[in-house]
């Protein structure tokens, strides 16, 4: 039974991975990462993606394994941290915790902040755990499968990733395309590695290096967010958080009741994380489903614990499973996964199927750290909520300049280039305008990261076929991926047509579509 052998092998590799973690320094980095991550998740203007981007240069002196453990723990911490602001302050620290405010904050208002936070953290942990299990057993299979991929298949998967943004995004498809193509265009700036030709540099030496996506991430998400927060004239008026062992225990006893919601949330999250729908739509979808199927649906929005469990499991499952395509195919499922991918590239590790063969210790160390990191995260957040809540009470007029300075430092350290700080400010204004006009930022960042890779696999595929697009339907595998991608791309049109047809039939008019 080859499948069973594969599973056993995954388990064996995982145990080796835990061996990597036996190094006490790695455990220390894990806790530092989680704490920094929660801090980043709590503070406005610093999120998972730009927090990791800013701290990335600091890890260059570490070994790649320690560095990725710390960086991914920052990511877990940021995922946990978003829930704190949602529940206590009704301000989502991260977009994926918006749905958590619906029931989390009403619970806090009724004096059940401790229960709401415990429920949020525990269900986050559950969602992440399911996603890590999925990664453990699915990643080697996908990586093995992807070893047989040629350039056409790789381009097809990338195409699917980008078309999913169009099909699954809530924004106007034209805006998604615009933002995405801007990312591709910025990625193309500079020296073309195949022909050695200079593209879109317009004689400027500074543009020769091209645009670094880390700068873009720090500007778009960091400075842009500060501008938006400032505009809202934010005043933090929060509820006090009291978490003690008794509250935690009482909440844990009541949580198993919501097992259906938790499992459904995890499945929605895993699916949305692997296909780059992302954590935010996953959390909304899971909340919506829970509301539709719950016995207490009339209580949703007034502080129903199930309404906290649903979005949190989904958001964490999505955030975690976004690393699956990043590790196995080199295609990140979220902006933060994209930043982690950038880190891997800087350390000279090429994510993709070969990583599982050539860098076994690294991969399994990372996967093992996901298990421990989430347990560490749960412990850290349950014990330190009051500290982080008090950080939120620091007025914005102190926080804002400090965060701008930190962003500037982060932007500078990427290449030690002053121009990058200027670029960061420009990206900040762009991010502010895009956010206000609902141009999505995630496809822009992903296109900027994957631009070169997508272009080179497209070119190679075209070289193989001598410019014949039929290569994308040359075998059933690539054909079905490309077809699925096209369905995704035209999904807004397809769904509009379907709805029109539906409403015609519902309308009772005897129009029979003849075409």
């Amino acid at each position, binding site marked *: 039974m080859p499948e069973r052998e594969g599973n056993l092998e995954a388990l064996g590799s995982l145990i080796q991975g835990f061996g990597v973690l036996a190094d006490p320094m790695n455990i220390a980095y894990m806790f530092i990462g989680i704490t920094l991550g929660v801090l980043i998740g709590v503070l406005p203007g610093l999120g998972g993606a730009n927090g990791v981007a800013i701290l990335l*240069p*600091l890890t260059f*002196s570490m070994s790649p394994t320690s560095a990725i453990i710390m960086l991914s723990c920052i990511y877990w911490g940021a995922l946990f941290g978003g829930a704190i602001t949602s529940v206590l302050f009704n301000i989502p620290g991260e977009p994926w915790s918006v749905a958590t405010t619906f029931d989390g904050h009403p619970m806090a208002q009724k004096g059940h902040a401790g229960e709401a936070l415990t429920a949020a953290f525990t269900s986050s942990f559950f969602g992440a755990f399911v996603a890590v299990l999925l990664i453990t057993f699915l990643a080697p299979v996908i990586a093995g499968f992807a070893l047989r991929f040629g350039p056409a298949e790789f381009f097809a998967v990338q195409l699917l990733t980008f078309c999913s943004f169009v099909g699954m995004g809530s924004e*106007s*498809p*034209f*805006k998604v*395309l*615009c933002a995405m*193509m*801007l990312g*591709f*265009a910025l990625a*193309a700036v500079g020296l*073309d590695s*195949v*022909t050695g*030709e*200079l*593209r*879109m540099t*317009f004689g400027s030496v500074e543009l020769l290096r091209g645009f670094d996506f880390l700068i873009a991430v720090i500007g778009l998400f960091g*400075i842009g967010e*500060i*501008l938006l927060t*400032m*505009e809202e*004239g934010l005043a933090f008026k929060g509820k006090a958080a009291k978490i003690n062992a008794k509250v935690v225990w009482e909440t844990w006893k009541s949580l198993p009741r919501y097992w259906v919601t938790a499992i459904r949330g995890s499945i929605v999250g895993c699916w949305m994380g692997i296909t780059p729908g992302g954590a935010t739509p996953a959390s909304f979808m899971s909340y919506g489903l829970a509301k539709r199927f719950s016995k207490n649906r009339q209580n949703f929005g007034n502080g129903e614990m199930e309404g906290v469990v649903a979005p949190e499991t989904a958001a964490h499952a999505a955030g975690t499973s976004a690393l699956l395509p990043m590790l196995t195919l080199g295609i990140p499922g979220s902006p933060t996964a994209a930043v982690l991918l950038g880190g891997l590239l800087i350390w000279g590790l090429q994510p993709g199927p070969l990583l599982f063969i050539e860098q076994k210790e690294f991969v399994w160390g990372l996967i093992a750290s996901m298990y421990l990191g989430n347990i560490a995260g749960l412990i850290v957040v349950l014990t330190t909520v009051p500290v982080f809540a008090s950080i939120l009470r620091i*007025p914005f*007029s*102190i926080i*804002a*300049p*400090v965060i*701008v*300075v*930190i962003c*500037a*430092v982060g932007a*500078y*350290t990427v290449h*030690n280039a*002053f121009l990058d*700080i*200027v670029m960061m*400010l420009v990206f*900040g*204004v762009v991010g*502010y*305008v895009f956010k*206000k*006009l609902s*141009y999505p930022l995630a496809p822009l960042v992903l296109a900027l990261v994957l631009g070169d890779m997508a*272009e080179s696999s*497209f*070119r190679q595929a*075209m*070289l193989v076929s001598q*410019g014949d697009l039929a290569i994308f339907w040359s075998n059933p595998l690539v054909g079905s991926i490309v077809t699925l991608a096209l369905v995704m791309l035209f999904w807004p049109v397809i769904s509009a047509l379907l709805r029109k047809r539906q409403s015609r039939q519902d309308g009772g008019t005897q129009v029979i579509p003849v075409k």
Partner: protein
Amino acid sequence: MEHGTQNSDPVVSNRTMEIVVAGLFALVAVVVMADSVRVGNGWGSDGPKAGYFPFYVGLIMLVSSLATLAVNIWRHSGERTAFVEKHQLALVLQVLVPSVVFVVLTAFLGIYLSAVLFIAFFMHWVGKYPLKTILPVSILVPAGLFVMFEIWFLVPLPKGPVETMFGY
């Protein structure tokens, strides 16, 4: 948003902004396509030329930006809603302008001293804090960064004449 105050007049409507941004996208798209044609967007002797892929990127951007443009010229619904109101713009500029000055200063004074000035100015101007709150925050944060980057992680940040004086 139901702001009844007189200082919340819209500065620019959503529709205008949509049209401007879509127009800028179209412009960028044309630049991308033009440059791709310059380096060659066809098939060279050894395969696709450098502009082969970016040309289509530009083309898709052009088509979709024109679509957004057309939708917004056609529809007037965005006319009523404000992209940004006067007092909002003032708040945004309150943070943006000092940030720009901070970045410019960094080129001359180095990042640490500029950070001290920037944080102190912002706290005084926006937060109206007394000196005894401003001084510790504005000095300790950059000092902490200095220790972390220059001494702990050995990552050099831009430094100015003052740091040189102290031998860094």
